[in-house]
């Protein structure tokens, strides 16, 4: 080997080196990344895919709604102390500040083999990576007569914040003094474990001031309160005695819209004036339709290291749609946390790097027990490589000792910051 030869080989090696590295970068820049659903999971994923790629990844967000309406805090709209406008954020910062291509449309179908997405408007888009964050489907058929009762406007769910949230508030205010507001809860898992109990507090808070002879009847299919149990029960006893009645192991099976009668699996029929019945829930419709819901046909199993579906390669699923790890709630905060882990993993993979072997998730959930006082539950979830799941750290996390107005201030601080973190 002469010197020229050696230099030539070295140059070739360097060229290869540059090519190698450039190729990985090019993969990240060339990849079409489609994010389906602009909730806490999808919006955050779109934004952090841009941030973590130093604004080099091509990201498209597909979302049918013109603006984002937060489910967290929406029980305050039901109770009447806040308006929906206060919980609404625009999507356009994601395009203006972060260069995300936003398509206001819904997804009709996903062809995971061809790696294409068909929009409701008819257009077909190709993807290299899809992030699917479609929230939940309310399984209306799980309560007999619920579809008709909902169509007739007799029963409302208001479990996706929007027009129904305001309509439920109106139903509550039109209740006669001495009337009953029935709120039913399906068996866990469902979206937002403490949400129904918070709603009961908000309705009771209104009734206490305006229709004090009225009652809130909680019909819970579960054995006991599924989240913040001791805290809620204390509040019900101290602040809403004689107004909130809690009935565990009451599984609603049917509703008669005409007579406003609720049928239960075991107990006698119950009549109520306002019927807020929450049916069982499953992964968002598009996830189920695409065959991703491979856990009992309801939830999507994912590899927790990168939130890739176990059913389809290159489809990452976030938020309420997934089959959760132990002690992992279906919450907006958790969906935002999922999104960041998935975004970092996708950027790593497309760059040709090893995926972060030790991702971390957090959850924080504030519940208002009246207009100002709040209780929280919080947790930290570290990835366990041996068991390929997330586990809460022993000794960490926990609950508030009691409701406080300080946490009421923090709850709004949380809301404004997570809205900005997801959409700002």
């Amino acid at each position, binding site marked *: *080997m*002469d*010197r020229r030869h*050696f230099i030539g*080989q*070295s140059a*070739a*090696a360097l060229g*290869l*080196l540059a090519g190698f*590295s450039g190729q*990985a970068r090019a993969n990240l820049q060339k990849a079409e990344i489609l994010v389906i659903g602009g909730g806490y999971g999808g919006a955050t994923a779109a*934004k*952090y895919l841009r*941030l*973590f790629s130093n604004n080099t990844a091509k990201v498209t967000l597909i979302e049918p709604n013109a603006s984002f309406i937060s489910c967290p805090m929406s029980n305050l709209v039901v109770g009447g102390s806040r308006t929906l406008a206060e919980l609404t954020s625009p999507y356009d910062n994601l395009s203006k500040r972060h260069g995300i291509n936003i398509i206001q449309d819904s997804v009709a179908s996903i062809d995971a083999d061809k790696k294409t997405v068909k929009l409701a408007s008819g257009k077909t888009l190709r993807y290299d990576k899809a992030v699917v964050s479609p929230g939940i489907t309310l399984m209306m058929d799980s309560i007999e007569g619920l579809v008709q009762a909902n169509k007739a406007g007799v029963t409302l769910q208001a479990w996706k914040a929007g027009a129904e949230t305001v309509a439920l508030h109106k139903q509550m205010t039109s209740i006669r003094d001495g009337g009953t507001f029935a709120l039913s809860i399906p068996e866990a898992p469902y979206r937002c474990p403490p949400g129904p109990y918070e709603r009961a507090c908000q309705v009771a808070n209104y009734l206490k001031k305006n229709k004090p002879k009225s009652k809130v009847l909680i019909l819970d299919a579960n054995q006991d309160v599924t989240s913040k149990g001791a805290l809620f029960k204390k509040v019900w006893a101290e602040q809403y005695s004689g107004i909130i009645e809690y009935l565990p192991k009451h599984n609603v099976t049917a509703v008669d819209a005409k007579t406003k009668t609720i049928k239960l699996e075991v107990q006698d029929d119950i009549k109520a004036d306002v019927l807020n019945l929450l049916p069982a829930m499953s992964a968002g419709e598009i996830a189920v339709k695409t065959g991703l819901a491979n856990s009992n046909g309801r939830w999507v199993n994912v590899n927790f290291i990168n939130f890739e579906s176990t059913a389809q390669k290159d489809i990452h699923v976030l938020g309420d749609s997934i089959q959760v790890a132990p002690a992992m709630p279906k919450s907006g905060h958790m969906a935002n*946390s999922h999104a*960041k882990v998935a*975004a*970092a993993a996708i*950027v*790593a993979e497309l*760059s*040709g*790097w*090893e995926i*972060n072997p*030790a*991702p*971390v*998730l*957090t959850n*924080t959930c504030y519940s208002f027990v009246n207009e100002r006082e709040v209780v*929280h539950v*919080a*947790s*930290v*979830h*570290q990835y366990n490589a041996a068991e390929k799941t997330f586990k*809460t*750290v022993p*000794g*960490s*996390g*926990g609950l*508030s000792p009691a409701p*406080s107005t*300080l*946490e009421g*201030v*923090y709850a*709004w*601080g*949380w809301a*404004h*910051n*997570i809205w*900005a*973190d997801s959409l*700002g």
Partner: protein
Amino acid sequence: MREKYLKSAILGALYIGLSHWSPYALAQNADASNLYKRSLAATCANCHGTDGIGVPNAGMPIINNLTSEQMLTQLKAFKSGAREGTIMPQLAKGYSDEQLETIANQLGKK
């Protein structure tokens, strides 16, 4: 001279062999490691804002006025129980000391 060339050739071959992996691996490790650090610090953003820049006057304590050193001191005080709070003592206990240090380095005032 011949021996010298041979030496170069061996070194060169070694270099070529390594260069397929080693320097690139080092480069990617630095970038990847930076990404992991950013994603760890992003677990704070839900409450304290993207990159630790919180929404002003929203009600949540602002953290980006702290230096990395000050932030780490506070995080460790929350973890040990020396500093009381609502959520932070519970969350800080979920992170290793090394993770808290990474977070403080990422989010502290530069």
